[in-house]
């Protein structure tokens, strides 16, 4: 036999419940008013969340010391890409020490899944996942990022230097 316990007459009073709820709300409001620095909300366009170094954001093509692209157009990133969003056109370089270089390096940003496999596949540290979050755009803007967007956009300040140097590699016999 089961015993059904009906709520007592005391539990029908809802005003104490409302007051406890309001107390919590007022506590948070007063805390936020007095402690502006410790507030939970990030005021987005003015304040920005600090990401860790391994954050995978928009792509960066690194440059050499003379400002040209570090990429050697070996097609490893385009082969490894699971979303098939990278397309490279290689060309012969005037300098005989440089084998080939990309005349067009395009990433279809609508297809990209920001997995970071291109960064892992690259043998010469030519492509990196940058520290900026993904950029939203209104219809009609370009969604296929080219070299000027990837390497020389204003956030990069004239290009990010690659860790791997050509002269060092030749000295080591690579």
């Amino acid at each position, binding site marked *: 036999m089961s015993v059904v316990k009906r709520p007592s007459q005391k539990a029908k009073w809802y005003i104490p419940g409302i007051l406890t709820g309001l107390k919590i709300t007022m506590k948070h409001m007063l805390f936020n008013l007095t402690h502006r620095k410790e507030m939970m909300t990030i005021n987005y366009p003015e304040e920005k969340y600090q990401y860790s170094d391994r954050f995978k954001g928009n792509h960066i093509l690194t440059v050499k010391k003379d400002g040209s692209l570090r990429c050697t157009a070996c097609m490893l990133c385009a082969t490894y890409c699971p979303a098939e*969003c990278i397309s490279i056109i290689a060309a012969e370089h005037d300098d005989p020490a440089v084998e080939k270089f990309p005349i067009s390096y395009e990433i279809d940003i*609508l297809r990209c899944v920001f997995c970071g496999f291109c960064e892992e596949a690259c043998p010469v540290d030519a492509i990196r996942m940058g520290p900026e979050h993904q950029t939203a755009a209104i219809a009609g803007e370009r969604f296929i990022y080219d070299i000027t967007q990837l390497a020389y956009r204003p956030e990069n300040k004239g290009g990010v230097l690659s860790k791997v140097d050509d002269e060092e590699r030749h000295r080591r016999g690579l």
Partner: protein
Amino acid sequence: MSYLTSRFETLVMGLEKKLHVPWVLSEGCCSIEIQNAQLATYDWQRLGMDDCAVEPSEAQVLIIAGWINSTRADEIKEIYSKLQKPALVMAVGACSLSGSPYKLGQTKNIICAQDIVPVDIFIPGCPPRPEALLSAVLELQRKLSPGPSSREVLSAALK
């Protein structure tokens, strides 16, 4: 007194024009990022995106996230026809924009959002960060009312 009430009315009208009510059609990991943008850390009500609507006829913005097959495409078309005019569409993530995580090999019947309805704001990423969603809301405000916003004017004056 009548002057004051009329000023108040124009203020309220202006505020209402800047407040968008979304209808969220989300699935998968993008929906978690959208919930994150709604919650206290990245509160998007500050930037003029209201709480989710109860019915599609109350909403002005349609937020599409997650993969779209033929059944879902019909649902999106039906909801888009019910939205308040001018209707705005925000497509979030690689699934709805190109279907790239699903289109490669296994399934063929994935449809892109821009093939069904006119998309106004594109947010790439898999999934995009909540900041990308907030910057999309700012882009939307800039598209609807060109020129410097009150936020930019205030921040320039405070410097």
